[in-house]
């Protein structure tokens, strides 16, 4: 699968031919840093002054590079496809190699950042448990009522929430049985076949 680049995009990336490879490498580093932490316009101004161009040009160059990297990572295109996509820009051999290296070096990290953008439910973080025995209450004395108290830690969008839950021994065994069945499902032929064939 090839990346389709718009005319505007090609124009923005065109700036990269006017600077040496060290600068392109630097732009690549800035692009990934922006993906990790968000954009910082001051960096554009600094670079613009050093290279004697307007900060818009720098911004477009970095953004173009970012788009190239994120689209490639999102679609998980192969080396060859990436090279072919970039060929259409008419860059030098050296620049093409540099861009490819930038893509391959950062692909995994960019994919994990993109993965965090998907809609999500709270996810499991960890679980603590405690065994309690209720001995008496206001309405009934002399009891022996075992219970398991559970503290469930969940993550949602970076926030950790905690839920305190309780269950009785019979339900606990039932939960274990049901969830073990769930785990077993991945090993069935049906699931194995699907995992093997969807690529």
């Amino acid at each position: 699968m090839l990346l389709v680049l718009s005319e505007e995009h090609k124009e923005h990336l065109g700036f990269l031919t006017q600077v040496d490879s060290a600068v392109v490498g630097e732009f690549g580093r800035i692009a990934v840093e922006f993906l990790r932490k968000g954009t910082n316009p001051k960096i554009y101004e600094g670079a613009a002054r050093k290279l004697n161009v307007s900060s818009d040009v720098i911004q477009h160059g970095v953004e173009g590079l970012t788009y190239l990297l994120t689209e490639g990572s999102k679609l998980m295109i192969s080396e060859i496809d990436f090279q072919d996509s970039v060929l259409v820009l008419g860059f030098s051999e050296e620049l093409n190699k540099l861009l490819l290296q930038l893509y391959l070096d950062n692909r995994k990290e960019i994919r994990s950042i993109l993965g965090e953008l998907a809609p999500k439910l709270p996810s499991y973080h960890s679980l603590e448990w405690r065994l309690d025995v209720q001995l008496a209450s206001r309405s009934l004395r002399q009891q022996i009522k075992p219970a398991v108290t559970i503290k469930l830690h969940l993550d949602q969008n970076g926030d950790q929430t905690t839920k305190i839950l309780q269950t009785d021994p019979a339900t606990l065994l039932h939960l274990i049985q049901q969830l073990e069945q769930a785990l077993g499902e991945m090993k069935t032929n049906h699931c194995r076949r699907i995992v093997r064939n969807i690529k």
Partner: protein
Amino acid sequence: MELSEYVQSGLQILADSGCFSPSAYTVLLQTAFQSLLNAQADQVALDHPVLKHIDPTVLKHCHAAAATCILEAGKHKADKSAISTCLEDCKFDRERIEQFCTEYQKNKDTLELILGSIGRCPLHITDVSWRLEYQIKTSQLHKTYRPAYLVTLNVENSDSRSHPDVSFSCTMEQLQDLVGKLKDAAKSLERASQM
């Protein structure tokens, strides 16, 4: 078993065969138990023909006294001798004490169950359901290809009302971690029960 003045005086009236004939006593006793144990009994059958001739205020007093006595006995898991002593102090004759104790014995387990279920507790897990999915792509990321589980715990409030379920997603490793920890809890329960 400590009973208040009000309850004791009510029981004393109940003990009096001048006020309550044997059949009236039997009916009131049964009514008292039913009103405590039967959830549908909002219309307490105090309008039984046998009780017709007794003053309604007196009836309510005695019914409340009997019910309180039953609850106190249940709360403290009183044995026959404790109940007998208490009723003797309220001037019950041997026969009426026997009747009370027999009726109590019949309903003791249900009573303890109901008393035991009153109280606060954290959200109680009643069931679990799960879903296994294989993720293929998202709008931001294609070819993700990983399995994920969605687990929903059905929970109930302390007054048996249902509460929105607790749902969360997890990977296979996380689910294994979860199940492992639950199994530890179960093992420790088993060990504790053997002590």
